[in-house]
């Protein structure tokens, strides 16, 4: 009810009355809300994968790690838009599918570039085959959304590739130090 009242009373601001300080504050509000939505989308997509029992669990931290590490800028320093953040979140969650090829494959060539839309379709198909039609539809709609924004997808894939390689590199260093300790 409160929401309805707010709509009724709301009047769109006149452009001439918008000061630049207010504009900055509005941008901050928008960016924060977009970031929270990115995290929410990653959570929704990951939960669809996990709750429907897809066998992608060992790499389950990947999506969260990727979306939370998206600081609001691309690798080249460009600010992310809401659309970019949604695509980053989707690719982060979709990277769970990498478990199918194994984390060990991460450092061998390009594993993300040109593949993320396929991940969405693949997960959608897997969910659908398990009768999870609602979850499947989320991934299918996301694949369509991403396909209509190829440049944003390319940039997000580049970011994800870099982060996954850093992640795999750290994991390998950790394993090497454990081996060294054991043998020493």
């Amino acid at each position, binding site marked *: 009810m409160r929401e309805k009242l707010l709509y009724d009373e709301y009047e769109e601001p006149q452009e001439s009355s918008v000061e630049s300080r207010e504009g900055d504050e*509005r941008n901050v509000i928008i960016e924060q809300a977009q970031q929270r939505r990115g995290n929410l989308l990653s959570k929704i997509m990951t939960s669809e994968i996990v709750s429907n029992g897809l066998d992608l669990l060992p790499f389950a931290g990947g999506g969260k790690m990727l979306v939370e590490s998206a600081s609001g800028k691309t690798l080249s320093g460009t600010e992310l838009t809401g659309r970019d953040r949604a695509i980053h979140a989707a690719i982060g969650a979709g990277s769970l599918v990498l478990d199918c090829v194994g984390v060990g494959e991460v450092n061998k060539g390009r594993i993300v570039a040109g593949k993320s839309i396929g991940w969405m379709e693949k997960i959608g198909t897997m969910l659908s085959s398990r009768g999870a039609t609602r979850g499947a539809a989320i991934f299918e709609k996301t694949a369509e959304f991403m396909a209509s924004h190829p440049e944003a997808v390319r940039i997000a894939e580049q970011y994800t590739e870099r982060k996954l390689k850093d992640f795999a590199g750290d994991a390998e260093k950790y394993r090497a130090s454990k081996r060294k300790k054991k043998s020493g």
Partner: protein
Amino acid sequence: MNTKEDFKKLVERLISLGEDKDELEYWQNIYDYLQPEQQYEIYKNLFEEFEALAKK
């Protein structure tokens, strides 16, 4: 419980306040497939943003 119509109206208002049209239309496209608690979460996110922007 908020309806899809409420959600659509909220999206339109936010777009008029400078939000990302493509992103919010995407949320509108997946809204029907979300669990009720997920619908609530995204509605809450947008509504709180709308409230904050409307005050500026």
